[in-house]
């Protein structure tokens, strides 16, 4: 999962998925009807990006997905970008300490990210003088966002690792045959 494994396709794929995730959140209202809250797919995706890519990819993801989400929302532009940037940069900085291959760790990181990003966004909006609709019901929405985000994060790892394996460069398989160790058989 290191930088070397990244092909040129991976950044394009990740940014396309970011835009599709934002489009999904705006177009498909089923989670809001069933659970009372729209799910946020971006924090979990940011966990995957920050643990599998370099800092530039993290920045690109935060800027593209954050500005895209804010463009379809009443948030001021940048309100989602900053929490995503902070989350991504912190995880990228300390990724050598995180057991990113473990499903439990992915779940826990997804939970923290999906709970932290909406909270930071609302606090940022309030600090900027906005009046977002926050009540006791928001606690339920926050729990739904965190729970769904935590379940989805290991799935992102599973799906994207599989896609990278399918479309990425693969290491050349070395054969055990070595010409210098060949035993020449002959009559002389």
């Amino acid at each position: 999962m290191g930088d070397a494994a990244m092909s040129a396709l991976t950044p394009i794929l990740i940014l396309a998925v970011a835009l599709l995730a934002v489009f999904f959140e705006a177009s498909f209202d089923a989670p809001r009807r069933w659970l009372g809250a729209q799910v946020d797919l971006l924090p979990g995706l940011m966990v995957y990006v920050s643990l599998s890519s370099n800092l530039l990819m993290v920045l690109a993801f935060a800027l593209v997905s954050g500005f895209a989400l804010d463009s379809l929302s009443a948030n001021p532009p940048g309100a989602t970008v900053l929490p995503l940037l902070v989350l991504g940069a912190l995880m990228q900085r300390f990724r050598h300490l995180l057991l990113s291959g473990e499903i439990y760790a992915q779940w826990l990181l997804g939970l923290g990210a999906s709970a932290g990003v909406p909270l930071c966004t609302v606090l940022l909006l309030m600090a900027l003088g906005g009046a977002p609709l926050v009540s006791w019901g928001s606690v339920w929405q926050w729990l739904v966002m965190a729970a769904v985000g935590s379940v989805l994060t290991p799935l992102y790892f599973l799906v994207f690792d599989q896609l990278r394996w399918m479309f990425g460069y693969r290491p050349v398989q070395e054969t055990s045959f070595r010409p210098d160790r060949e035993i020449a058989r002959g009559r002389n």
Partner: protein
Amino acid sequence: MLKKAPYIALGVAVLLALIALKLPNRAAAQFKLAVGSLFLPLFGVVSSSQHLMSKAGDTFVSRADLVDQNEQLRHENQELKFQSMRSAELERENGRLRQQLGFLRQSPWKLLPAHVIARDPANWWRQVWIDRGRRDGLRADRPVLAADGLVGRLAEVAETRSRVVLLGDPACRVPALVPEIRELGVVSSGGNALDSSLLTLGYLSKSDQLKAGQLVVTSGLSTLFPSGIHIGHIVDVHAVDFGLYFEARVKLLVNLNSLEEVWVMLP
């Protein structure tokens, strides 16, 4: 220097986000409309596929169902014709009386149908996007209705789409009237993030005459909403600020969670 490059990039990204946050309202709206236009092809694809699916679904409706529906619609149509005749007569009478009193003649509503194409992805706003914009003659702050009553108002208008602030959003406050007792108030967000159907009607004085089930309509005491648009029914009344004034909970007539088609009132 190369080692520092990612941190410089991080600084630039944070700076960009901060600049975007501090943009003036007009520039921020234009920036958001420009970025949001990235999604126009996707909205188009979804809208066409929904249209195709509904067309495909139409081919499977049985003839008996269609005949039943047709019969029902014919009855409804006749009823509406009678009501329309009566309304036209009342309107003429109203016009004559207004003329005698020297009042301005009220112009009939001009409505433009629109489809809801997206919702605000954030849980802390109540807004939707519709598929009509400046090209269709829309301007900001026009009222938006559904068949049952008021939905909200236009907040932002782009060339081909517009953002509607729904009732219940902190940015949508409507001067209202309880016609039964001629009591004025202001309908604002109910403050409940989970239930979008309950709003607050504030600044009321006649608590003893307010009863559950009374109709609430727009009062016309604002330049944005004309009078007489249905909003909802009163659920209950309670005192605020040690009985200084009263607030009522209002149940909306329109189900904002299942909005698909709305009507924008044109000037």
